[in-house]
């Protein structure tokens, strides 16, 4: 449904924009209907930049994002409004997503005035109630309240309900539960997973591997703007291949396994393979930073499991092109 094809983002930095900072380089993946794709990376990996490009909040430098056959970069003028009918985002901090002067349900009336000005009042009311029920909120508990009267989990669910009022195809969820309490975050997470059954595609951006593992079908691991490993979630977690992925997984605090134990499990070298699996498959390919536009970025190691170049020490080179 949504597909990213070698998407890159270059920021101009330094005096007079004399230097280029490559925030995202050649990222390609698809989101299909009813699929949760988790985009995992540490701070500065460019995961939010990818989300913002999907939401058309920033321009794409190279590559293309295609939604149902339409190039997103070419959507201009009044068509943008129609684009947002299908693609919406929810962000990290629920408290700053609302204007504290107005009641929280103003986010619904804004949708109505923009997209459904013709709809009769009662019909709109039913639509809002249905959306609230879908996110397991009681309408009379959350309507007519100011943002400070609601909890973070309620506010976050209101924003998801707001997105549901539209004919949503893609929801970009950028760290939406990292500010929530342990007891409520799992409810919001389950809610996202339930939305899959409505045929929605979800781009779940997070730094928390355990959350990504819990709900997503597909996992994309970003490191400094480059995809290092990608594929079906159970394959990426079950058989982590890239050294960076292995490092991440061994650093996640787990509940029933100590760090030392995970590390010793992952320390064993992958049987029969040594060196960079990407360059084993494409011996002539360049490094991430010197790659030309038609060179491959990922090598297939098994069905639905791809891995990028193992070269981890090209950090400086990949930052400043």
């Amino acid at each position, binding site marked *: 449904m949504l597909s990213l094809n070698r998407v890159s983002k270059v920021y101009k930095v330094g005096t007079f924009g004399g230097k280029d900072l490559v925030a995202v380089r050649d990222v390609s993946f698809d989101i299909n209907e009813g699929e949760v794709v988790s985009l995992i990376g*540490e*701070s500065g990996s460019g995961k939010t930049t990818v989300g913002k490009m999907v939401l058309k909040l920033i321009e794409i430098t190279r590559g293309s994002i295609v939604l149902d056959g339409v190039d997103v970069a070419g959507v201009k003028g009044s068509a943008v409004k129609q684009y947002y009918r299908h693609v919406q985002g929810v962000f990290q901090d629920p408290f700053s997503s609302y204007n504290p002067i107005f009641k929280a349900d103003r986010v619904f009336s804004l949708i109505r005035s923009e997209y459904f000005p013709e709809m009769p009042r009662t019909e709109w009311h039913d639509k809002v109630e249905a959306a609230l029920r879908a996110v397991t909120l009681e309408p009379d508990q959350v309507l007519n309240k100011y943002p400070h009267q609601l*909890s973070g989990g309620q506010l976050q669910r209101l924003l998801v309900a707001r997105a549901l009022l539209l004919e949503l195809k893609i929801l970009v969820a950028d760290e939406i539960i990292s500010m929530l*309490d*342990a*007891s*409520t*975050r*799992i*409810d919001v*997470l*389950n809610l996202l*997973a339930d939305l899959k059954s409505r045929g929605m595609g979800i781009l779940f951006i997070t*730094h*928390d*591997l*355990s*959350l990504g*593992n*819990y*709900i997503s079908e597909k996992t994309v691991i970003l490191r400094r703007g480059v995809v290092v490993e990608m594929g079906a*979630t*159970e394959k990426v*977690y079950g058989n982590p291949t890239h050294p960076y992925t292995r*490092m*991440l*997984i061994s*650093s*996640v*605090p*787990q*509940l*029933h396994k*100590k*760090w030392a134990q995970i590390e010793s499990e992952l320390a064993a070298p992958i049987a029969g393979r040594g060196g960079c699996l990407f360059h084993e498959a494409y011996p002539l390919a360049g490094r991430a930073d010197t790659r030309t536009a038609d060179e491959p970025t990922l090598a297939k190691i098994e069905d639905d499991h791809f891995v990028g170049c193992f070269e981890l020490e090209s950090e400086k080179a990949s930052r400043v092109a």
Partner: protein
Amino acid sequence: MSLQVSDLKVYYRTLGGDVKALDGATFSIADGEIMGLAGESGCGKSTLGNSLIRLDGRMKYVGGSVTLDGAEMPIWDKTDMIPFRFREVSVVPQYAMSAMNPTRKIGLMISELVKSRGMAYSDIKVELERRIDIVGLQVDVLKRYPIELSGGMKQRMVMVISTLLNPSLLIADEITSALDVSTQRAVAETLVSFRDHGFVKSMMVITHDVSILYQIANSILIMYAGKLAEKAPTETIIGRPLHPYTQMLVGSLPEVGVRYADKKLSGIPGSPPSLLKPPMGCRFRARCPLAFAKCVEEPPFVEVEPDHSVACWKVAGPNA
């Protein structure tokens, strides 16, 4: 026994009345013990940590006592606490990223700090450099400004500074929350190594992330709405918790290997009660699936087996 807290009560003064953020805490931390303190936001865990260091203007000491290494700490008096702070009890604050003076080079800041405690920089310099090396930083960080360090480096530097005088108790308040997973692990393991090196005798690690505690803590204390809910060795809290709140909290944590498709986790319905007028009896009653008539009375925090204390009528039995 390194730290002994008995029936400590600290309230927040507000226009609407007292917010009972910490309403009677009794527990102890042994020498060499790393105790984790976990709970939802607003359960009073930071209040407990802060009250052992410094009560700010809004906080009111109501009752209870704190004994550290046999000496009672006058936590209600800001000035009398000065000899204890930094020497006996020290803190790595929640926002360690911005805890250092941005206008001073780190070395100069430390020298001013130790001077204020009547020591010369030259006395501690060798030890300081040794510890900087232990946490994996270069000694030349002392000649740099805090802004030149990354978040994880600042975090580790603050940890070195806080423990410089070998305090008996270190309070680490949410120090891993703002860090990336790989840095998080390095910082958490540094905490453990500080204990192993004997820089601090015991530690209280405050966090909402129970899985971090599983990795580093010897025991875990769970708080709910200003009260202690359960304290036990780490393995017991994670493996066979007794308090319904602990059970639901541990059960709601997604971890690597648990998938939505295979095993749907569930959260805890409802939200914690207001601490302005907390409900009578067990404060978890409204959200508790096991609540029964007895729960309108307040459950005592009792030891049900060695080193395992719980505040719940279902566990303690109605005759307790």
